[in-house]
């Protein structure tokens, strides 16, 4: 008996060393951790249970029959994050460069199926070289199976991808279909084709970093939702995100004890809006002062900064926040901002996370660049996403809510549940100056008369009361009571139930 037990220990030890000490050291030298080390940091201490540790590939071509390593380049299993179940797979770069074989894909699919069946989030840690070329079409088939699972699980369980090394070719599409992608700065990159192919095809000379580094994907391409300094920071922050997310689309919102009094008023918000209407202010201050303890997990913080998206808690329960940022481009809606917010709103709706919207929007961004880029369709995505969302929707207009952008930003008309406005809100078709100049074109030559007209328009429309008279605004609230009002509204909406007519799925303007 003892021998048998010892044999298990021996086999486990052999599997756990992956590609061997030399490769582990090479991984460390690059500033990266190994797959198992990463899992150990991500999950609660001692909670990881590994599956398929002894799986090996079945390829025989190109001498592969002689090269077999237990695990075959991916570590899979389950564990807990602060006691809640999570499934995980981590590419093991020390084994065949983490490349995907048929057996490797089978391991991934198995864990994806388990995650879906058990309705728990899944996180993938990517650090691999793509398809195992020696296996040819079998690897491609494996990718397809993984993709299919990604899509089937989408909207049922949260799927998170953390890119911690190379992620290229077929490997990129699995993360691309998950809910969030995060990257580690300097050690990770993502692209469909690498610099060598780019050079051959287009004659462009680029580095890995320029083509697909974290700096590119968090700012320009918006592929990544955030980036972190190193493996440890990334994994610690992933735990923070997982704490905020429901386990599945039918689970209750996660809740923790809250010590931040939701009844307290915050007088400082009464001076947040500057006297000068053209002076920006930082919308993040309002977000941080409305959420519990000023704790905010921002999504896509470096991309389309004119809109802010992210998660926080109110009275211990998760909320999603969408807010125009007057500090950047005056908070205007453009194509990037619309797409960014639309995707975030849809994530929240999938997982029953209430949406809190702060509005200070001067309209959609004019110009050929925007129109040629399809602003109409991108703007429509946000409009569609908000309208379609059946989760509790609470809206607070702080200053401008002009034109079509007013409608888009979770207005009453598209299903806002509770719509508040600060006394500083201006809900109008456009700013007073523009409106007066159109209405009184004949007065344009006379600056004095036009000034009177602007003043007239301002007095009539540059306030929340015209909208409130019509019931478009449920209540005009003091800025200092924003947190209290939002908390109350969330309590009120806790059992909101709303259904869309049956459909196979909608046809959002993609």
């Amino acid at each position, binding site marked *: 008996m003892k021998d048998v037990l010892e044999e298990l220990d021996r086999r486990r030890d052999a599997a756990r060393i992956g590609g061997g000490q030399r490769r582990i050291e090479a991984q460390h030298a690059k*500033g990266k951790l190994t797959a198992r080390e990463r899992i150990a940091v991500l999950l609660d201490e001692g909670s990881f249970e590994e599956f398929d540790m002894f799986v090996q590939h079945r390829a025989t071509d190109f001498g592969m029959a002689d090269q077999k390593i237990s695990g075959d380049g991916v570590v899979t299993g389950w564990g807990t994050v602060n*006691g809640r179940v999570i499934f995980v797979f981590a590419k093991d770069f020390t084994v065949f460069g983490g490349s995907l074989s048929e057996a490797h894909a089978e391991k991934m699919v198995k864990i994806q199926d388990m995650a879906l069946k058990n309705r728990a989030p899944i996180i993938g840690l990517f650090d691999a070289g793509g398809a195992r070329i020696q296996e040819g079409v079998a690897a491609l088939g494996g990718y397809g199976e993984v993709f299919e699972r990604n899509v089937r699980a989408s909207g049922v369980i949260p799927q998170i991808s953390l890119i911690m090394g190379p992620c290229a070719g077929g490997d990129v599409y699995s993360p691309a279909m998950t809910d969030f992608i995060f990257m580690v700065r300097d050690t990770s990159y993502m692209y469909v084709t690498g610099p060598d192919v780019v050079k051959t095809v287009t004659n462009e000379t680029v580095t890995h970093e320029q083509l697909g580094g974290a700096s590119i994907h968090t700012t320009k391409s918006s592929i990544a939702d955030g980036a972190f300094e190193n493996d440890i*920071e990334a994994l610690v922050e992933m735990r923070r995100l997982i704490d905020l997310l429901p386990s599945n689309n039918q689970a209750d919102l996660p809740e923790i004890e809250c010590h931040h009094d939701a009844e307290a008023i915050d007088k*400082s918000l009464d001076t947040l809006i500057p006297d000068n209407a053209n002076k920006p202010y930082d919308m993040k201050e309002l977000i941080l002062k409305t959420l519990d303890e*000023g704790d905010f997990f921002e999504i896509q913080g470096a991309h389309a900064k004119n809109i802010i998206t992210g998660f926080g808690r109110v009275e211990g329960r998760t909320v999603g926040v969408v807010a125009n940022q007057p500090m950047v481009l005056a908070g205007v809606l453009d194509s990037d901002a619309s797409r960014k917010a639309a995707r975030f709103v849809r994530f929240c709706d999938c997982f029953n996370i209430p949406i809190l919207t702060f509005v200070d929007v001067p309209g959609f961004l004019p110009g050929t660049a925007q129109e040629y880029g399809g602003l109409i369709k991108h703007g429509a995505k946000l409009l569609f996403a908000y309208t379609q969302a059946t989760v509790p929707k609470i809206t607070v207009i702080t200053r401008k809510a002009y034109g079509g952008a007013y409608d888009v930003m979770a207005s009453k008309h598209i299903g806002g549940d509770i719509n508040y406005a600060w006394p500083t809100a201006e809900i109008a078709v456009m700013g007073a100056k523009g409106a007066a100049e159109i209405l009184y074109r004949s007065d344009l030559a006379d600056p004095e008369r036009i000034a009177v007209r602007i003043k007239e328009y301002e007095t009539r429309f540059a306030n929340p009361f015209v909208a409130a008279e019509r019931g478009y605004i449920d209540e005009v609230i003091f800025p200092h009571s924003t947190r209290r009002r939002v908390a109350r509204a969330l309590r009120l909406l806790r059992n909101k139930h709303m259904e869309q007519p049956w459909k196979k799925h909608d046809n959002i303007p993609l």
Partner: protein
Amino acid sequence: MFSKILIANRGEIACRVIKTARRMGIKTVAVFSDADRDALHVEMADEAVHIGPPQAAQSYLVIDKIIAACKQTGAEAVHPGYGFLSERAAFPRALAAEGIVFIGPNPDAIDAMGDKIQSKIFADRAGVSTVPGNLGVIESPEEAVVVARDIGFPVMIKASAGGGGKGMRIAWDASEVADGFARAKSEAASSFGDDRVFIEKFIVNPRHIEIQLLGDKHGNVIYLNERECSIQRRNQKVIEEAPSPLLDEATRRAMGEQSVALAKAVGYDSAGTVEFVAGQDKSFFFLEMNTRLQVEHPVTELITGIDLVEQMIRVAAGEKLSITQADVKIDGWAVESRVYAEDPYRSFLPSTGRLVKYRPPAEGVKDGITVRNDTGVVEGSEISMFYDPMIAKLVTHGPTRLAAIDAQAEALDSFVIDGIQPNIPFLTALMQHERWRAGNLSTGFIKEEYPDGFTGRATDEETRAVLAIAALSMDLIRRERLEHHTGRLRPASGKWRTDYVVRLDREHIPVTVPEGYAAVPLEIDVTIAGRTLTVTSEWRPGEPVWIGSVGGDTVAVQARPAPGGTLLAWRGVTTFSRVMTPEVAALDALMPVKQPPDLSKYLLCPMPGLVVSISVAEGQEVKAGETLAVVEAMKMENVLRAERDGTVSAIKAKPGDSLAVDAVILEFA
């Protein structure tokens, strides 16, 4: 007694005067400029009158507007605070002409003390010890050399109309005198439009000590002991205390009595201050007399128990002083820090903007320690570029000097300000400085002890222990909360593990705790670097300051969220922290140390927009925080500032250019 007074000032001093007036049952009127519409002093006063645009020259300094405000509101008297109109003899005269009482000295006394040479002559005549020197105006370099030899080197050549260090020259020998004379004269002419200079003895390692006086309109004057204000930065007082660690009773009495003699000689009839320069040998020499309430008056109030503003109001109303010299005692020690909106890490550049967070320490008396915070702001206030960047005066009082200093350090540690960078890290670091704690002061203290500016206090074992303990205890409480997270597989035991590693910046510090369960209040014995300390704290997640007891000492550590950890600040040390298991810490040690990317070479357009103006020229040297360009986007002007010091090597855009995001506006060398 008056039934209503107007305060011709703003900020903390206006609030300070209003508090006393309110306690005395007197109604108050505030005045405010456009920039102060939402200011605290406006809110605190019973009435408020708008007096014009933000620039002081068009609002707070306009006598007619103040008088009009008095008439409009029926205020019978005006308290001028400090600065602004407080030492202009024309102001009380104008008020008197309208039948309004000035809560301050009579204008003749202000006149007598206003001119440096004049005041020295008065002081000399009144028998006040003056710096050996020639009080007359010196005409030629030759005369200057003769006078200097007579006084004895080193000497200082000073502008008669001077102040703020301008037109001052120190000379150690005859040739330096001749040279310094010419320079001081031309500087005086250009700075003050008055080229008169005089020469006096230069005191090596001088200290700044001043005597608080109080007089009435019946010829009574008393002295309320001294304050020492030797901790100065560029002639600006930073820290003040009372009493002075230098003086003995005899010197104190001599200084006090001479000051009273001077006050009586000029018919002084309010609160005032006689400033002295003192040598380390307790010699002292008259510097000047300030005919107003001083910024640092609270330290005197705390050691004497006398409300100076109340006394000023009473004597202005014609009351006789009810306090005699014999009543004036010294009770304990008081220390005041001036909290400025100045970034200590960027050579104290003004840091203006919105106070996103402003949470001063709790005021009041506890265990024999008094904490008092005189301020004119609240959370959400704007620190504007138009006025003095002082945010608050934090004063602590205790039975001894060290008790007051330790209380000051603790109060500063728990003073949370976000949105701008205040000088608090510098102040709290200074409270730990051995030379300051020893009372071995001079006005050159800051220049001598921080010759290269302030870069944060060097950390030591004690500091590391405190920070690691604060980090660990916060982490244990956060973990405890997450153990009750809904959706757990099985209830957590709540039992903590016994060994951790706390990362402070790049250093890993092992700590151990006995077996136990986390709960608020936390009580735990933490072993760190071979020492076991009992730690207690009632901190809960989200509180910006961790207040706890570490080995019996109360500490207040500020905590701000940072990616993957918490940013901690204590006693001028700011550090990133992360609490890990030893296993995770071993992996953390493998993480590469990265050089921060060099983005300083370019100023990029942060948004698509129109260049309104470029404020610099090619080849120009710029300081961090200086305006480089203004870009308009969506009809909003965005000011782009230099992130660090540098030289502009090329300008790539011009006003009127329409720029895309990340377009290069200018390049640095």
